[in-house]
Structure formats: C-alpha cells, structure tokens
C-alpha cells in the first residue's frame, strides 16, 4: 500500500492527536455506564435528547456563554457552505446546544427535564474528544432542582458501585465578588482566576496584593475549603460586611448545603471551582469518587435569556465518561457464545450453519458462525455437516452427536467438561 511503510502503528499513530479509540472491553464499560445513567434518569422522569455535532459558533460567543479562553480552544471552521463568513463549531459543550434545543422545540413547556449522552470537542494537550452523560433541568426549579441534580448524580454513581462519594459546592458569585474589586479587565480577571484554579500560589499572592483589605477572605474562600453550611455561615459572618456582594451567593449555597445535610450528606464548600464557563450564575457542584472529580454542573439562569431574550432559569450537570471508565469494573460476561462450525465449505453446509446459529439465537442462546478455523478458544461449539451435528461443551475435546438444535441446546447448556 502506498506510504504504508511510514504509517505502521509502530512509528506514528494514524489517528489524529487527542483522539481516542474505544476498544471492545472499554466499550463494554462505556455501555454499562451509559445504561445505568439512562435508566436512572428515566426513573427520575427525565427524557433523552441528542443535539447535532455541529452548531453555529455564534451560540457560544456571546458574553455569558463560554469564556474567551474556552472559545480560543474550540474547533471552529467555515463549513462547505460557509461563504457567508459565519463559522460553525464542533460542539465544545452540551449545555448550550441543549438550551438551544429547548428554545427551538420546547420553549412553551414550563419544565423540561432532559438528559443526553454525547461527545464534546476541545483543543487541549490531552484528550480532545470527551464523552459526557449530561442532565439539564430547564424551568423555575430553584432550590429543589439543584438538590435533585446532586442526588441524581450520586444515585448513578452509587448504582455503578462506586464509592466513597463526595460533593463539593461553590458559587461563581464568590470569586466574581473578589475579582470585581481588583480593577482588572474581564479578561485579566479570568486569567487570574484560572491561575488560582491551577493552584498557582503566585496568583493568590497577586490577588492578595491587589485587594489587601480582603486578603483573609481571599486566603480562606479561594485557597481553602470547608464543611457544609457551618463554613458558609462563618464566611458570611466574617466577610460579608467588607464584601457585601457575597451575601446572596452565600445564602444560595447555605440553602443547598442545609438540604443536603438533612439528607445525610456533608458537602465540602470552596470559593474557586468552575472554570471556562461564563454561564453559571448560581450554586455549582462537583461529584467526586474518592478524590477524583467525575462530574460537575450548576445553575445557569441567564443562558436561555442570552440566547433568546426570554427568562428561563436552568441548571444541569454532566458526568465525565473519561474519568468514570477507569473506575468502573467490567460487567459480568453474559452466557458464552456458541460457535457454529460448518464441517465443510459446501454452500449447503454453510447455509445450515447460518440457519442453526439463527435458531440458537432465537432460542436465547448467543451464537455465531465460526468464520475462520480455531477461533472458539474453548467456548461451546456445534459442528454441523452432512453427517449431522456434533455438540462440544465448553473446554471439551469430545463431542456429543445430537439430532436436533433443541438437543444441542440441552447439551451446550450443560456447563463445561473437565
């Protein structure tokens, strides 16, 4: 093949940088997560949707959608009919497309409970395609909606057998309040915020220098985290006088934290958590398995208004498939496949082999025709030919002559032979 010598897998991957193949074993775990997620969402009254991979870029560019940093990493381009100069984008996020879907198709509904499993694309050093299991709740649901989302996310994780589970709460209003006092431009504020989230101590020091009177609030709110509503109340008592803008965010956080505590959960609270999304307006949360953040979301009451001018509060979250996959164990293998082998290559025998496999499947036994020799690897076999059928149990070298498919089924279901 042309150029094959330099394109062998040993030398250079043929896939694009940042793109990931999902192999059969990984797909089994992927489907397991997807099925548990979808099933749980349906039980909670959510309906599945799927949005297109390509959207107009303008959906994501308005202030209050994605941050300028995030927009600098989207896959945007002029598509085949982009002669008008307007760009499209591989969706970098699913919340905005689902909000668009709601506006276009469900705008009259007072409440839309939607979920989806789909991929997003962002230009990063690591994985550039990320699969997400997401939930969006559009309608006036506060504060119950936020509680429901946290509990729904935890239930999915619990059903996947994962633990210990944790919840971390925050509110973008806290960090916006502090950064708003720095006199920095919106872009500079965002860069500083990102640096703080990266754990850069210099960034925190820079922020302290800019707002010396708020230095203790900066240290505690942005550098540390505390437990639940007690911590929220302490922050309010200590800093709301000097920084009254944090009062409302703290009230919202307290309401959510208290309800979760009443449900027996102890959320952690921090001031700095979510990045790159400008659309969050209220409480935001992360779902954790141990120390691993496996999902996150929050309230975005202004997004629908940015897109269509109509006020519709909303909130949502997504579970990150890439983080969950390594944590989930492979689901138990279903009944082993029966390999149906044609004893010879004649058209009549091959036809019988395919018909026999079909009958076995109809009777509930997974069955496939052995397309090449020696592929059964000790699994049950049924050899068909002009001399009749010979059934081999798993691991057996000696077969049983059988007169019908039903009889073969009885033999093959009989377990393995030592």
């Amino acid at each position, binding site marked *: 093949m042309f*150029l094959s010598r330099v*394109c062998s897998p040993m030398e250079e991957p043929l896939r694009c940088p940042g793109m990931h193949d999902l192999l059969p074993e990984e797909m089994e775990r992927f489907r397991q997560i997807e099925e548990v997620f979808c099933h749980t969402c349906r039980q909670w009254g959510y309906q599945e949707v799927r949005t297109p991979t390509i959207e107009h870029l303008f959906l994501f560019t308005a202030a209050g959608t994605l941050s*300028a940093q995030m927009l600098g990493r989207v896959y945007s381009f002029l598509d*085949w*009919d982009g*002669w008008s*100069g*307007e760009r499209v984008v591989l969706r970098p996020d699913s919340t905005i497309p689902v909000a668009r879907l709601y506006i276009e198709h469900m705008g009259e509904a007072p409440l839309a409970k939607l979920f989806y499993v789909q991929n997003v694309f962002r230009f990063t050093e690591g994985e550039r395609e990320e699969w997400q299991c997401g939930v969006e709740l559009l309608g006036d649901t506060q504060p119950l909606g936020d509680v429901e989302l946290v509990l729904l996310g935890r239930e999915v994780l619990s059903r996947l057998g994962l633990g210990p589970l944790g919840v971390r709460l925050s509110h973008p209003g806290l960090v916006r309040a502090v950064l708003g006092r720095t006199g920095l431009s919106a872009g500079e504020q965002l860069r500083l915020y990102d640096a703080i989230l990266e754990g850069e101590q210099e960034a925190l020091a820079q922020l302290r220098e800019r707002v010396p009177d708020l230095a203790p609030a900066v240290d505690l709110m942005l550098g540390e985290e505390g437990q639940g509503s007690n911590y929220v109340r302490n922050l309010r008592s200590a800093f709301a006088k000097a920084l009254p803008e944090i009062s409302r965010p703290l009230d919202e956080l307290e309401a959510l934290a208290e309800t979760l505590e009443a449900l027996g959960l102890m959320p952690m609270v921090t001031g700095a958590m979510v990045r790159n999304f400008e659309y969050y307006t209220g409480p935001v949360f992360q779902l954790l398995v141990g120390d691993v953040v496996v999902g996150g979301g929050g309230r975005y009451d202004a997004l629908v208004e940015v897109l269509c*001018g109509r006020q519709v509060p909303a909130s949502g979250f997504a579970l990150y498939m890439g983080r969950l996959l390594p944590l989930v164990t492979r689901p138990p293998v279903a009944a082993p496949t029966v390999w149906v082998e044609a004893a010879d290559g004649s058209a009549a025998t091959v036809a019988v082999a395919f018909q026999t496999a079909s009958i076995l499947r109809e009777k509930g036994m997974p069955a496939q025709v052995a397309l090449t020799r020696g592929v059964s690897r000790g699994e049950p076999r049924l050899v068909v030919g002009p001399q009749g059928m010979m059934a081999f149990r798993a691991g057996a070298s000696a077969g049983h002559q059988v007169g019908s498919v039903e009889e073969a089924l009885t033999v093959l279901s009989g377990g393995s032979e030592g």
Partner: protein
Amino acid sequence: MIKIALPAGELRRPLSQLLSRVGLEVPGYGDGSRSYRLALGDRAQVRVFRERDIPVQIALGQYHVGICGAVWVEEFLARHPRQEVVKLGALPLAGPTLFLMAAPSTAQTVADLSRLAEPCIVSEFPYLAEALALALRLPRYRIIPVWGGAEVYPPEDADLALALASHEQEVERMGLVPLLAVLEGPPVAIAHRQAMKALDMSWLLSALASLGLSAVSGMRLPPSLAGLGLRARPPAREREVLRVALPDGHQQPHVLGALAEAGLSFPGYAEGERRPLGPRDGIEAKVIRPQDMPQMVALGAFDVAFTGRDCFLEHIYRFPSSPVAVAMDLGKGAFNMSAVVSVDLPAETMEEAVAFWQREGRPLIRIASEFVAIADHYARRRHLWRYRVIPTAGASEGFVPEDADLLIEGTETGRTLAENRLKAIDVLFRSTTCVVVGRHPPGGRRGELLRWFLDALRPVAVAGSATI
C-alpha cells in the same frame, strides 16, 4: 546549514541595509534580485518568501530563522497558537499599524459596535479579526477574509475593516474612522523552536540581537462590550442599483479590453480609481481583488464580477453550495492551472510522479499552492492519499524541490518554470477571465440593468461558456 527566510516586497531594501550593519549581508537581496535562493556566505541558505508565508515555513521547520511583519506572525499564531514559533524580537524598523476601522456612519467609537446586530468584518487577517470579535464578545458576527484592499469595503459591503495603515491620518484619508489600533507591525525575527534547542545559531542570533531587538507587542485587545445578547438579523435591504465588481492586478488589462469591445465605459477604472463611475445611471462599480469576487457576489454585495476561472473554482471547491455561477467566459488572459514538479523528478505524468514517491517511501506529498481548495480538490481526485497543502501567497516557484514536492500553479509560457528548473506534468484546467453572477437573478430595475449589461458583453464572450 542554517536556513533563513527573508521577506520579499517593500521590506527588502531597508531590511538589507539593517542586516548589513551587523555583518549579515545577503548579496542580491536588497537590490531585488529575481532569484528566490540566496546565501549568507557559506554559513546560511537564504530564501525569499512573501511575508505571509514566512511564519508557515518557520513553524514547519523548513526554515530556522525568519523575518516578517509582526502582523503575519500574530495572524498565524492566532490560528495555530501552539506552533513551534519563537518570537525573538522586533527589529528597529518602522512598520504599519493594524487598525479596526469603520465608516463614520457605522461607528465613531468601539462602544458604538454594540448597536450592530451582526457586524461584518472584512480583513486580510481573518484570525486576528476573529480574536478581536471574541474579545469584544460580539454575540454574532461575520468575518469575510479578503486578499487585500479591505479598507474599500465599508460601508456598503461590510461594517468594519481590519487593515494596515501607516497612521490614523491615513485611515481618515480613506474616509474611515480608526476605532482601535490593534497591533503595531514592525518586522519581527522569529525562529523554529526545535532549531533553537538543537542547532548552533548563536552567531546569527547574536548579530540580530546587536540590532537592538525590542519586545514584540502582542495584539491589543479591547475590553468586552458587556451585556450583548443575540439579536435577530435585520432584514436584507433590497437595492435598486446594479453593483459591478471590477478587478485590479493582472486581470485589469483583460477586463478593460473586454469592456472597451463591449462599449461599456467605467470612467476612472483605467486610472486606478477604487470607485469608478458606471456606464449608465443605476450602475455603480468598485475595484476589488479578483480572488475576493466570487464570495462578494455570493453575499449579494455585487451582482456582476469579473474574475479568473481559477478564482471562481477556488471559491466553488471551497464552498460548493455558494450561489454563484459563471455567466460567460470572455476568453481572455488564458493560462493553464498546472501540476508542476522539479525537472529532476524522473516523471513525465502525475502517475509516474506518484509511483516515484511511492518507491522512495515519502511520508507524505507536500503540495504548495496559492489555490488551496483547487490543490486539495486535485489531490483528492487523484487519490494522492496522504498529502499536505502548504498555502502560499504567491512566488510558489521557489518552493520545489526543497520545501514542496508539487506545485499547483498557473503557467503561461513555461519560461518562469524553465528559469526555476520546473516542469508541468498535468493540466488541471485552462483559466480565462469570466463574468460571475449570482445564481438567483434579481428582479425589477436591477434585473433589467443586469440583462442589459450582460447583453452588451455577450458579443465579446466565448459562445456556450455559461454555466447557468
């Protein structure tokens, strides 16, 4: 040996003088030698490129150090932010400034842009325009990339232009308001990152540093225009006037000849006016680059445009659904669009060339072309499998064989090819001057004027050449 990329054009003479001051004399560079390949003694190979090609060549690692206007570096990095380009510093030479400009009726300040529902920005620097639009957080905008002359588009054909000018007064002389100086554009020295790490270029870098390089100022981005939500597009304005786009550059003499034969006069066109008068009432004209015409017709800014078939096909291969068509072929300015290789390549056809590259085990075929969509279309149609199209801004002849294996290039007499030790091994199509119109003809007075105009041209056209 170190490979250096230096700019063609107006920078040649001042840059040559500057480099000579620190012992970097490149014979033939300053006096505008037609040769693209020069040398700096026996220490470095020098190749002359159009400015916009230099960041591409440095990023690809085909050249180790390059010098070009800051605006081309920033445009490239805006599109490919993680490319292997290190900015060494700005040279002590004057350069133009990149301005965001608008017609006075559109905006007097940046803040006025919040009044526009969907601003249209025309620029030779589309990725810098994109960065600007994102920084302003314009909720919805359109960017029209053009090959040049962006300042001629506002206000009729765009709201804003992002274009180079010497200073604010020059913008005002164009009849526009300088809203924002986005980028100072002195020439900058850049280097390939890996070459910096591995190759001893210290003598060259010391010499450049002794010129007194200053820090490269990046793009000056404005604060966002807060609180802009999406707004419905304003309804399209129906116009009565027929608008004709006339080309500058190499197409101009051919179009002037055809118009004269058809008895159509555009006073001022031959004299270089950007807005010549029309041949009768109700027809107005503007002179723009031939490369930009199909898109402007597709956008409805013009009803008729004169451009080469090469430019038409470049547009239609890129945007197959674009509502433009060739109304007639004037048969003038003919040349072949050819596949060109080095004379040393033992191949007389494309098949032989591909077979040769196969035998050599080339990792990919490098195709250099000013016509990226045409080159891409050709490579797909000929199943070249793994290839890379290197966009060039012209002067492609110098790319083969060092920097590209194949050129997709317009060839007329073959003399330039021979001078550069090149040969054509395939002809993609024959390009001639065409009249391009929209697929959906206008009605009313404008429709009548269009029919009158095309009827006048028809005797000049090649029979049966229309595609609609």
